[in-house]
């Protein structure tokens, strides 16, 4: 190389750029493939998350969905006629506020003798 011209530093700069070392095609494609593989791996994870979410929603809607399940729990459209509860089994009809309930031992009236 002859760099004896006036603009020889410019020529050296140009030569450094044009003759810079180049990576072999096989190594370059191997690195690019790995970089691209890393990127597609991220996409694969994201698409897997989407597929699982959609699958869950489809399964839930097949059974009526969350709203339907909640509605069925609160407002049973087919109430059972033989509704038993531990309280009714032990104390019969009436609940806590039943008028005939008396736990003071005197028949009628209250503890002060009033009827």
């Amino acid at each position: 190389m002859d760099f004896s011209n006036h603009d020889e530093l410019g020529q050296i700069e140009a030569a450094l750029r044009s003759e810079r070392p180049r990576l072999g095609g096989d190594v370059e494609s191997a690195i690019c493939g790995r970089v691209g593989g890393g990127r597609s791996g991220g996409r694969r994870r994201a698409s897997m998350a989407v597929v699982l979410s959609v699958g869950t929603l489809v399964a839930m809607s097949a059974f009526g969905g969350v709203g339907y399940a909640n509605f069925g729990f609160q407002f049973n459209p087919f109430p059972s006629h033989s509704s038993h509860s531990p309280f009714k089994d032990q104390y019969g009809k009436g609940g806590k506020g039943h008028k005939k309930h008396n736990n003071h031992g005197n028949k009628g009236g209250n503890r002060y003798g009033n009827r």
Partner: protein
Amino acid sequence: MGRPTPDPLAHPERLTQSVYAYVAYRIGAGPDAEDATSEVFARALRYRSTFDAAKGTPAAWLTGIARRVLAERATEKFAPVGEMPDTAAPGELEHDSVNRVTMQSAVATLGERDRELVALRYGADLTAAQIGDLLDLSPNAVEVALHRALRRLRAALEGDVVPEPRVQRSAMPSTADGV
């Protein structure tokens, strides 16, 4: 909500050549440079999410990783560069290849600091401002240092040996880029 961070490895083809050219100007072309380049991209994949576009371009980010990789390798196994291995191009040596080897050989005779500057500017294709960010120098200081390095390179190409002023290792710019 902030702007989505761009993928620094979205266009790896151009970046692999830049990183390899930088590494090859630093340590000489060949299998070692290929290994180092591969390692740079392995780390880049690992730290891809830490890339901050506000701090620089993907090329500058990768060059920072490459500097770190070379610094670590230098302490591990690399012999001091100066003797460049004879790397013949596949097939017959054409004029272009001879020139390339000659230029690389001339670069290899430069001191470490000059070689770093030449590799950053003409291998990684960074601007003076980007080089200044990496080496903690002003762009003007980078330009001046590059001019001197080119003069020494010209002397090496013409067969004259112009020794670079000895630079203490501790005085060299830090290669710790945090990656």
